[in-house]
Structures are given as structure tokens and as C-alpha cells.
């Protein structure tokens, strides 16, 4: 009960923080829409080729975009964490009786919401432009990607709490982002690539999320691909939540010197 209340309080705090920065709300929506408007047309000429059933480019592309939204919504969590570390907010909250898991979960739930809202908007708009929505599969897909957003959010928070510096966090996140997204076939299916690339992709946990996403968007729910996707993504989320909570238990500002 207390835990639920604390989580709600922290979620509310983080949600207010986001709503007060409308720039991020706007870009959170426009970025995926720009991908749909400016990138998807490039794929039209590939339609009918390998990996793209004729006339169904969006059916392959939209699930990838949804994964990208979930990834982006989660990975931004670490930056504000560093500001809160530097301004003593986290230290102060750590001296209250509040649960550290609740502290982490408040941010994670906010980020899941920040994925879900643009996600639904993208699905709606894509449907207008010819995306064949299988509603049952899409519902399960949103759950899967909520797990991914949670995993990314908790990881980003943990990275921020441990690295403590904006520069280091930026270096790690951008350094990891590229191989993770390239080797998961988010934008283009990996079946277009050579065999060594496809083999390498199997080492990337997000590859399984993307594979499951495409299967779910196509309406097949009870398949091994989807099961494996949930298994890998769920395990990643559990691990990240554990790491994030542990990081909050020990979080300490970089220097005791006064910032102001």
C-alpha cells in the first residue's frame, strides 16, 4: 500500500516534470511521424523485393518504428537523474523512508506512458496510410514494448547514477544505441543482409524484441518468436530494474562541493 502510494507520488512528480517541458512532448510525437513521412517512402521501391511482401511496406516498417519509440522514450531517463544527483534531490529522497524501487519505478512508469501515447498515435496515423492493423496482436505488442521501454528507462537511470556525468552518459548511450538498433533490424529487416550480419544480430537482445514485434503486428501471437521476444525482453527489464534499484540504494553525488 505504502509502496503503491510512493510509486504514484514519484510517477506524478516525473509526469509533471515532463508536462512542463512541452518541447519534449512535441518531438516525442514528431520524430516517429517524420520517420513515417520521410523514411517510409524510400522503402516503396523495395516493395515486392525480399523481406517486403508486395504493397505492405508499412506492415514491416511500423513495428520497427514502435520499437524505436520505446527505446527512445526509455533511454532519456538518465539525464535528469544526473541533475537530481548534482542538486541533492536524490540524496534528500534517500534519507526519507521512501522505497528506492518506488523511486525508480516512478520514472519507469512515466517513460512507459511516454512510449505508449506516441505509439498509439503512430499506429492510428499509419493505419490511415495503409498499415494493416491486427488489433489483438497490436495490444500484445504494446505490452511487449512497454517492457522494453521499462528496461531502457531503468538502464538509463542506473547509468546516470553510476556515471554521474552528462558527458560520460552521452558517450555510453550513443555508443550503445547504434549497434543495438543497427543489429536489431529496426529500420530494415535483417533478412536483407548477409549471413554474418544475421548471425551477429542473435547476440543483441533487442533483435528478439524486434522479431517478436513484426510477428505480433502481423497478427501471429502464439508463436515461438513472440515467446522468445517476451522472454528476452522480460529478462532484460527484470535485470535493469534490479540494477536501477541497487544504484539508487548507493547513489552519491560526484563531489560534495557546492554547486550553487
Amino acid at each position, binding site marked *: 500500500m*505504502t509502496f503503491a*502510494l*510512493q510509486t504514484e*507520488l514519484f510517477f506524478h*512528480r516525473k509526469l*509533471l*516534470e515532463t508536462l*512542463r517541458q512541452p518541447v519534449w512532448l512535441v518531438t516525442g510525437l514528431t520524430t516517429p511521424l517524420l520517420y513515417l513521412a520521410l523514411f517510409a517512402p524510400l522503402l516503396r521501391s523495395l516493395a515486392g523485393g525480399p523481406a517486403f511482401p508486395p504493397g505492405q511496406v508499412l506492415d514491416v516498417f511500423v513495428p520497427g518504428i514502435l520499437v524505436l519509440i520505446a527505446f527512445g522514450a526509455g533511454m532519456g531517463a538518465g539525464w535528469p537523474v544526473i541533475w*537530481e544527483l*548534482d*542538486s*541533492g*534531490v536524490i*540524496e*534528500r*529522497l*534517500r*534519507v*526519507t*523512508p*521512501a522505497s528506492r524501487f518506488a523511486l525508480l519505478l516512478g520514472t519507469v512508469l512515466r517513460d512507459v506512458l511516454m512510449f505508449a501515447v506516441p505509439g498509439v498515435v503512430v499506429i492510428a496515423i499509419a493505419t490511415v496510410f495503409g498499415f494493416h492493423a491486427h488489433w489483438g496482436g497490436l495490444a500484445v505488442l504494446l505490452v511487449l514494448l512497454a517492457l522494453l521501454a521499462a528496461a531502457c528507462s531503468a538502464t538509463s537511470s542506473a547509468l546516470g547514477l553510476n556515471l554521474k556525468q552528462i558527458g560520460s552518459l552521452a558517450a555510453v548511450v550513443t555508443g550503445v544505441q547504434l549497434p543495438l538498433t543497427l543489429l536489431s533490424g529496426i529500420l530494415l529487416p535483417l533478412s536483407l543482409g548477409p549471413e554474418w550480419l544475421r548471425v551477429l544480430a542473435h547476440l543483441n537482445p533487442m533483435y528478439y524484441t524486434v522479431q517478436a514485434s513484426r510477428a505480433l503486428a502481423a497478427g501471429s501471437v502464439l508463436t515461438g518468436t513472440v515467446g522468445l521476444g517476451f522472454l528476452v525482453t522480460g529478462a532484460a527489464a527484470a535485470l535493469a530494474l534490479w540494477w536501477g534499484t541497487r544504484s539508487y540504494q548507493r547513489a*552519491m*553525488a*560526484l*563531489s*560534495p*562541493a*557546492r*554547486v*550553487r
Partner: protein
Amino acid sequence: MTETAAAAVQVTGLRKTFQVKGAPVAALTGIDLAVAPGEIFGLLGPNGAGKTTTLRILTTLLPADAGEALVAGADVRREPALVRRRIGYVGQLGGADVNATGRENLLLAGRLYGLSAADASRRCAELLKVFGLGDGGAGVLADRAVRTYSGGQRRRLEVALGIMHRPGVLFLDEPTTGLDPQNRANLWDEIRQLRDGGTTVFLTTHYLDEADQLSDRVAIVDHGRVIALGTPDELKRRYSADTISVTPDPGAPEAAPVLARELAGVPYVDRADVEDGAIRLTVTDTTRAMAAVFGVLAARGIPTRAASVARPSLDDVFLRETGRSLRDKGEDTATQETAEVAA
């Protein structure tokens, strides 16, 4: 002021070592102290002496390597949750959420300590009034983002955040650093009022006057251990006495060193030293020694150019114990600060 089980804070043999680039750096080498309920206790020392590390251990932020610490009747190591419920903490960094309003900050803090929404909002209104953050024409201040606050307003909010749940023991880490004299005096008054209301206040400071005038009792720390502990008056009397400085006129018939030897024999004068042409007399009774000294000078017909009396300060205590002055900081604090960084 006795070290009984009823102490608000009881610390024995607290030790902490940080690893800095693989090498151990001792931050605390054995802190012992006891704080009585309802007093303002000051931890005075130079930067890097271990003040913040001590506070972080007592507030459950950092685990100690060894030693015992009881805070508000709970063991810091074994019952951290209980300690957190009973204490308030205002860190050096402040800790107000600058994107939220003052009121939102206070309400969240209250709810986290288990106050109901109604109780939290009542307590919030009360504190906004006490700390002058919400009244009258400035009523909007509490509903503005904290980033728009002045330094003094922000610090007052941060102290209010620390006492939202009426803790029995309040920890303040360098509470007045960065404040102008006016805000500093106001905060001192507010801290005294908290003490008068029954709150035990444990603060760290590197300001001599803050330790001397604000604290009921002081522990002076250096290199991670307590080197002196008592009321400011006790400490000053124990370690140092009043001094009388007399500067003879350059044309005086007797040279300063000769005169100093003579004055050393005057009643109530303990010793006499010569510094830059001035004779510095350490005395046991200031008024009587003054009369005697000037009697001698008058009898010899020695004109004086300047004369003054100096009372001892806590810096004299620090100087006697360490051979260094608290005023010239900087020396060998670098390694300790790196240690805290590594933590």
C-alpha cells in the same frame, strides 16, 4: 550533556576509509561523540576533516567500516529505516527539486513520511508562514518553480523540507554556506527556534563564528577524529586565555624584549611574547592584569602607541591541537576531497 543512552546521537569509534585509485585514504579514523536531546551540536573543522562523511553515515547515506552509531534511538547500521523515519536532513547540495514549486516539494516530502494529504497541506501552510515563503502579497512564491527563488528563499525552503515531518533530530550540512549575512542571521534564528521547540540540531560548519555563537556544544574534528569537545566557552577557556597586546612607543627608554621580561613578572600575567614590536601578554585575570601592567608602564614613564585585549576564539583551540589555523584552509585537504569524490 552526559553520554547516556538517552543521547539523541551517540557515536563510538566510527571509521571510514575510501579507495582512491586503488590506495586507501582514511576519512574517519575513529569518531566518538554524544549529542544531548534538544541541543544545537556543531561539528567544526576544515574542509576534508570528515564532517560530511560523518553526517552521511549518521543519515544512513553511507555505510561505516567500523564503529557504532545510534541516532534518535535507532542503530544506523541495523535499523536504517527507523533512523530515516525519525530524522530530518538538509544536505550541502540543498536537495530542492528546482523544476517543481515550493509547495509541491513540501507536499511530496510530507506524503513520503506518511502524512495524509490533508495533514501534509496543513503542515505545508504552517511552514510556508514560519519561513516567510507564502504569505500575503508574496503568496505566489510557494507556487512558483524553485528555480526562480533567491539563494536565501531556496535555503529556507530546504530547511522546511527537512522538518516537514517534525523530526526529533535534524541534520544540517554546512547550512549557511553561500548565504549573505542577513539571510545567515535569519537562518541562525530559525535554527535556535527549532532547538527551543525541542528539536535536536546536529550541524557541520567550517565557520568559527557559527560554531561559537550558534552551537550549544562543539566537536572540533581534524583528519577524521574529534580533537576537542565541549561548550564553546569551555573549550576556549581550556585551551586559551585572554591576551593583552601593548605596543611601546619606538622612542621608549627600554627595548620591547627587556620590557616583556619585566611584564612577565607582573601579577595575573602568565607569559609574555614579543611579536612585531608588540608585547603579547597571556593573562589569567584580564581586568586585574590590565591595571597592573599599565601601572608598571606608568611608573617607568613608558609611552604606549597601542594597546588592545583579545579574547580567545575556537581557532586558538584548533591551533593548539594541530599547530594549524582554521582560517588558512587548503592544506592537505585535496586528498580527502578526492576520497569523497571516489565514494
